[in-house]
């Protein structure tokens, strides 16, 4: 095909970006690592699965519906969410997972040469989406494993369009309370959109955790992300959402993709809103598993951090990437944290009790190998 010069057609910021390569499917991993079973403690999934009502929707789902397009913008689900949080349905935008919603916001507010501000050790997708969109990610070091408000404010300049906060932070589980978030929004003073990614907010039991939807009334530059992948056990269906002040939401809607959330996800998520019994059961499970992991860390002499969320990090005496491989060879998947810029740390999701027991046994064996 003479005349086709691919390089000429690819923007420099795309050429420079390295594609993310997901892990192979579990069956391939099991074969490669020679194990019969893999406990998934690497993606912060909810071992309790979806709430009962969501399960019922899926169980009675008529497969013939797969031939139909979903309703284009999640009419019913947006109203259900809005009703739960005292919002107008037009303030809510759905996406095929929260990752898609992150992309909507960057596309809506950033152009080449602009920047976003976020932390260096947080959820990677803000940084990645900015980078391959030609937008500079300005990465601010964490302070004491938490977002550094003063440093974030110093990083904002005239080309900053969006500040991404992850609250609680993945992977550290650190969090800002309502007063701190309010002070930060005051200090930003509308110079940039402030996104607060609350993917793990439903795990927060602390009374001081922000009521971000209330702050939105006073700070129209605030955007809140939530997901059905964590607490609600619907990660496999890919559905997340954001809420913003009406004018901001109307702007983001221009860059959002209609029909991107599938029909089953819309129905299952709608039934999940807002199952308090499921939240209570999941939180109880997390409390029990956190206590067990803390006991293991104490017994092995490992540092542990993680206040809120269905995960915690352990400080290992060996490289985390080595521990990851050795755990895989024992049938346990945890997340090596070098790629989160936490070399030597391992993030562990609070899985089922048998999975956590398998992890404890495997980790002890791995560390005994030295």
């Amino acid at each position: 095909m003479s005349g086709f010069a691919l390089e000429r057609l690819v923007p420099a910021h795309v050429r420079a970006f390295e594609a993310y390569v997901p892990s192979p499917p579990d069956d391939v991993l099991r074969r490669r690592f020679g194990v019969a079973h893999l406990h998934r403690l690497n993606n912060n999934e909810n071992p309790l699965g979806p709430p009962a009502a969501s399960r019922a929707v899926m169980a009675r789902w008529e497969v013939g519906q797969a031939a139909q397009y979903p309703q284009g913008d999640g009419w019913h689900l947006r109203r259900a969410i809005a009703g739960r949080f005292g919002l107008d349905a037009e303030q809510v935008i759905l996406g095929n997972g929260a990752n898609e919603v992150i992309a909507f916001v960057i596309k809506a507010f950033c152009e080449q040469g602009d920047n976003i501000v976020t932390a260096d050790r947080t959820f990677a997708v803000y940084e990645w989406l900015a980078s391959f969109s030609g937008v500079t990610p300005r990465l601010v070091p964490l302070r004491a494993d938490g977002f550094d408000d003063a440093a974030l404010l110093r990083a904002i300049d005239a080309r900053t369009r969006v500040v991404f906060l992850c609250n609680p932070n993945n992977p550290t589980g650190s969090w800002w309370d309502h007063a701190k978030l309010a002070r930060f929004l005051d200090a930003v003073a509308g110079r940039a959109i402030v996104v607060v990614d609350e993917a793990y907010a439903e795990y927060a039991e602390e009374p001081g955790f922000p009521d971000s939807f209330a702050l939105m009334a006073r700070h129209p530059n605030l955007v809140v992300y939530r997901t059905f992948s964590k607490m609600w056990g619907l990660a496999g269906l890919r559905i997340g959402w954001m809420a913003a002040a009406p004018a901001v939401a109307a702007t983001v809607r221009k860059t959002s993709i209609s029909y991107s959330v599938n029909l089953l996800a819309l129905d299952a998520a709608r039934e999940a809103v807002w199952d308090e019994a499921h939240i209570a059961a999941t939180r109880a499970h997390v409390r029990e598993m956190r206590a067990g992991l803390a006991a293991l860390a104490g017994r092995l002499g490992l540092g542990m951090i993680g206040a809120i969320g269905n995960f915690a990090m352990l400080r290992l005496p060996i490289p985390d990437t080595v521990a990851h491989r050795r755990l895989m060879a024992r049938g346990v998947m945890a997340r090596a944290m070098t790629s989160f810029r936490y070399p030597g740390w391992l993030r562990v999701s609070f899985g089922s009790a048998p999975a956590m027991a398998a992890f404890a046994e495997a980790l002890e064996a791995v560390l005994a190998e030295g």
Partner: protein
Amino acid sequence: MLLPPGPGFAAVGAEFIRGVAAATGIAPRLGDRLALIAEEVLAASPPSAGQVSLALRDRRHALRLELGFATADVDLAGLDQARRQDGEDTADVGLYLAARLADRLTTEPGVQGGLLLGFDLARAYPARVAEAPPQALGPVHGVPLEPDDATLALLVDWAEASGAGGPVFRTAARVLDQRAAGELAALVALDARRRPLGGLFWQPFGRRLMALSGPALLLPEGAGRAALATGLLDAALGRLARGSIQGLVVLEAAPDMPAEAFEVVGHLPDAAGGQHPVLFRALEEDPGGIAWVPAALRPWVTEQVRRLGLGRDIEEPPPPARATGAAMAAETDRAAGRVTLRPLLAAADAAAVAAGNVALFRGQGFSQFRAVLDLGRPEHAAFAEGLVQAGLAPAALIPDAAGDLLLLAATGTSR
């Protein structure tokens, strides 16, 4: 510049390169070597090669002549130094000479397909006496950072004078040129007076790895040194994370390298008859992959895969499609007496070519031999048997899910 292949335009290409070299201030001696390489390669290029592109790049610490071919199916056998024998045709002799004139020869896929040959000539740097570091340095102030040129030069001077860090931390002018060419990255820790206390360098190693050198530590013995080394390493890991680099390799660790942050993936023999560990630090999770392993090496690789806990499908590689014409590239370090061989083009005669290369360089007095095979590329396996027959043994398996690197090594001028 684009020229037709064959002897007819070889002199034109040579004069073009010589002219560009002269116009850009390159020493006549280097310009003549580059021109001769261009002439020999063009003359030996078959008509089927299509238009050949010529480009001269100033990499500061080295000059690089690139010859691009529209097709990857160019017979490179003449570039293999082991093939030089009486009675070979003149085209092969020309390519042989071109390969001998370069300090380093590389092949890589062209941007739009095809093949790119790169011939590197190292620049010479005048010898000078490095300045010794002051006595009262430190303590560490702030996080390690990418140094400006003056700070980097000072670090290298002080490291050279105090014998710290290893051979990469020598000749400040060369290190600055390497960094300017994008072939070396550095992190340096400073004290409150912004004087360098220590540094860590890394350079490309294969497709997706970096070779780590150092640390060069200028602090006196004491508790601060270990913390400084760890701080430099953590900063380097943070700097490289979330990029294209999958891991760090340490072929010759400086004494202060924090060994607990690495795994030992093998051992390399040294000139003194001993051996030293090869260290590796993965930056990403290894999800497993395919390793194409020849039968002769299967037991060793299988054992290493098990020992390192790698998830690998170990496969028998198919035989090369070509019957003849296998070639290897050689990178020589005459001062160290070391030659490193890498496959250029696989064919059914790969084993003989590999053994011939080792024999040739042994005959030239080289005493340290290394060969790097990419187990993600099935065609590389064809060279293994010849390397083993010539006395090289598997020394290290450097993990990379997209293609583990198998390092073979031998020491000694005779078997």
